[in-house]
């Protein structure tokens, strides 16, 4: 479990960045790439962090807006020895403690505390089965997508046990609502008694990382289980036979290290995989992470458009991915980008492809 520290506790990291200024984190930061001020990059934020520690800067609405536009995608940290994500989270906590937070985040936090979920639950997937599955708020709000994923699992002899659950609270923690996150954790633990299982499957990469890091649970993303099953029965899927690229979701790839299983599945589906230049550990966020899509839709779309451009540059017209945030974010951007570039790039979820191939 991650210990939560105050900003001052990271002073040594912050000063180390300030005295180094190598900028390895900066150029590929998807937010900096759109917003253009250094302040939006991790290196810039580390100077702002120093201002907060030394009290030459105080929490403000403007600082909150800047910090809320961090995707928490972890690309900066992949290129650095410092604890960048924890520092940015602790800066967000400083904002909340200083009385500054974005209304939409406050509303989301309140909703999670009162209703136990971030989004309207349109699906009631509770069922008996053999292996615990944590569904998460996003999939509970998407009955069709959830039904597809469950159907794929069933057809591969993975029989999920789904019980009552509450939100893992990722967004509460990531946006700096420290005390509220403690409450959410309590709520989660009360509801989620069943998860004393030796292994818990998950569908959402963000829930996966949160359950692992904040609750210490033995989670495995369901796509890994699918890859394991398909290894045992290589002829189980038909070949779909098209050309596509694969977008690594930040939490599933960079944070959890699940890179090869989705590619292995694509290979089995007969899909000719063309890698984008930034892939695996250095994949670029879709623009939907860290709560950015809630506070700044335009920014989120611009970032997603840049990711779609990465695919276009490789000459492919289909992006596959396996994340309930990446998929709609990229698809929306692809539709907006199409008139600008004259090419529509389709975005197809891996669960949908498996659904087709297993029929």
């Amino acid at each position, binding site marked *: 479990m991650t210990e939560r520290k105050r900003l001052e506790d990271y002073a*040594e990291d912050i*000063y*180390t*960045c*300030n*005295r*180094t*200024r*190598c*900028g*390895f984190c*900066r*150029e590929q930061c998807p937010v900096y790439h759109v917003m*253009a*001020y*250094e*302040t939006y990059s991790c*290196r*810039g*934020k580390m*100077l*702002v962090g*120093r*201002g907060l520690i*030394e009290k*030459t*800067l105080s929490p*403000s609405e*403007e*600082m909150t807006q*800047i910090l809320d536009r961090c995707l928490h995608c972890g690309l900066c*940290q*992949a*290129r*650095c*020895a*410092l604890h960048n994500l924890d520092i940015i989270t602790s800066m967000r906590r400083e904002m909340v403690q200083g009385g500054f937070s974005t209304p939409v985040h406050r509303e989301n936090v309140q909703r999670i505390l009162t209703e136990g979920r971030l989004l309207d639950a349109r699906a009631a997937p509770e069922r008996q089965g053999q292996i615990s599955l944590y569904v998460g708020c996003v999939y509970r709000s998407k009955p069709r997508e959830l039904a597809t994923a469950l159907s794929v699992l069933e057809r591969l002899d993975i029989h999920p046990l789904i019980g009552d659950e509450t939100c893992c609270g990722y967004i509460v923690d990531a946006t700096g609502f420290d005390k509220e996150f403690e409450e959410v954790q309590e709520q989660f633990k009360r509801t989620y008694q069943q998860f004393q299982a030796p292994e818990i499957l998950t569908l959402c990469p963000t829930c996966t990382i949160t359950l692992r890091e904040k609750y210490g649970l033995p989670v495995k993303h369901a796509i890994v289980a699918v890859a394991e099953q398909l290894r045992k029965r290589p002829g189980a899927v038909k070949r779909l036979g098209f050309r596509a690229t694969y977008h690594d979701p930040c939490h599933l790839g*960079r944070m959890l290290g699940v890179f090869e299983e989705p590619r292995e599945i694509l290979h089995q589906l007969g899909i000719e995989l063309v890698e984008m*230049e930034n892939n695996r*550990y*250095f994949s670029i966020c879709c623009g939907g992470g860290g709560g950015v899509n809630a506070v700044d839709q335009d920014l989120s779309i611009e970032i997603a458009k840049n990711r779609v451009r990465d695919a276009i540059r490789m000459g492919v017209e289909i992006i596959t991915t396996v994340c309930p945030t990446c998929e709609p974010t990229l698809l929306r951007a692809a539709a907006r980008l199409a008139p600008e570039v004259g090419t529509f790039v389709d975005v197809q979820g891996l669960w949908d492809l498996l659904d087709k191939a297993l029929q």
Partner: protein
Amino acid sequence: MDAEQVHKAFGELREILGHRASTSPVHRMAYSRDWSPRYRQMNDLPDIVVIPRDTQEMVRITKVAYRHGIPLVPFAGGTGMGGGAVAWNGGIMVETKGLNHILEIDDQNMTATVQSGITIEVLNSELARHRLWLPHQPESKRACTIGACIGCDNDSTFGIRYGKIRDCLLNAVIVTGRAEAIRVGQRKASFSSTGYKVLDLLIASEGTLGTITEATLRVVPLPEAREVRGYVCRRLNDTAKGLERLLGSGLAIESAHANCRNRLHFYTHSYREKYGREPQLPEWADAILFLSFAGDRDIVAFNVDKASRIMVDEFKAEPVSEQELVEGWWDSKHRLEFIPFKQKWPDSQRQKKFGAADLGLPIGRLEEGYHRYLEIAKKWDQEILGMTIYNESPNKATASISFAVFVDDSSQDTVRKFYQYVREMSEMAIELDGTMSTYIGDGDRLGGFNQLEHGPGLKYMRRIKRIFDPKNIMNPGKKFRSRWIEYDQGEHR
């Protein structure tokens, strides 16, 4: 800064740039430092930050600064080690990385025309699609821009084959302190005998003449293969003599870095930490010469073989058998590809910061320079990191030297000691017929004091500055005044 003038200027800049002009304390803070040694709490806050997108916007920004007499400080990669990109006198910080477009890649003429704020890494990833590359490659290439390479005349890993930025630069657009945009240079030709070489004035100008907004660069084909090798030598001078001999034999060497005993220990320490075993290096090893070779595979293989024979037979050197140690050097100088989330950098900077005196010495004075460095560093309580000799001029052994130390930046006094070290090292360089700086530049450290190097020439430099920048708004102070080194100002007017 005159608050009223700043307020008026900001209003006008907002008209031009909209949200790309800001007086926010948060944004200003993010532009308060570069990589130069300064004490912990030291901030140089600009009054305004602006992000131009093209030359015309830069002209309009400069007109505003000119009208109100406000300094303009170009900011690029922010990785400079001399304080060149800090707004020492406040003013308008120009975030040049908004000028980040490739304007043309001309395969036929092997040129690339770009806006100045594009980073070397991004440019090279685009050029790679054409099987081309820009061989001017500073170690900071992931952050450093073309404009910064021109303005700072920084180092290049491949200098011994391709030279530095001036060897690649064909023309450039500068918006002078008079708010005029001029293209200087020789279009797409590689040289010209007409007029004065105004393009050369831009090299290492550190934003004191104007803001560079565009550049055309000669690019070269990507090599098919590359090999790196290391040779331990018995004496530091053998590295330079050996290199001169290798080049004299007709071999093509792509990069050559020589390191003193201390710096060699730095690499062996990294090797030991990473692989958990002791590298097999002879006890007599006093220096190490790292080389890279590139080109067609068979030519590279021949080059490696011949170079090894010369170094072993004629200089009694020994090839480094642990190739991982050599690859470690190459990772840190060129590839910059570290294991994700396991990168050690910048952990080494936690206690003390890396700093350097970047002298140029004649190649026959290396041993002498090294011993003086040890003495001077000790005198000013600087912890020695080591000496690296970069070769930055095509096909000859040269000595652009990083005399590196770890700087204690916990207080103003300890940082001042570092700059005393820089001062005395600089004096030593002049005494040994060398130069005070070869890749960092004057910044806010050597200005004025550099009369020791330039003599009456400095007066002419001031006059040149006035032609480009009559109101002294372009990065004022830099190159002509030092905030760290004391000198007799009476002599330097």
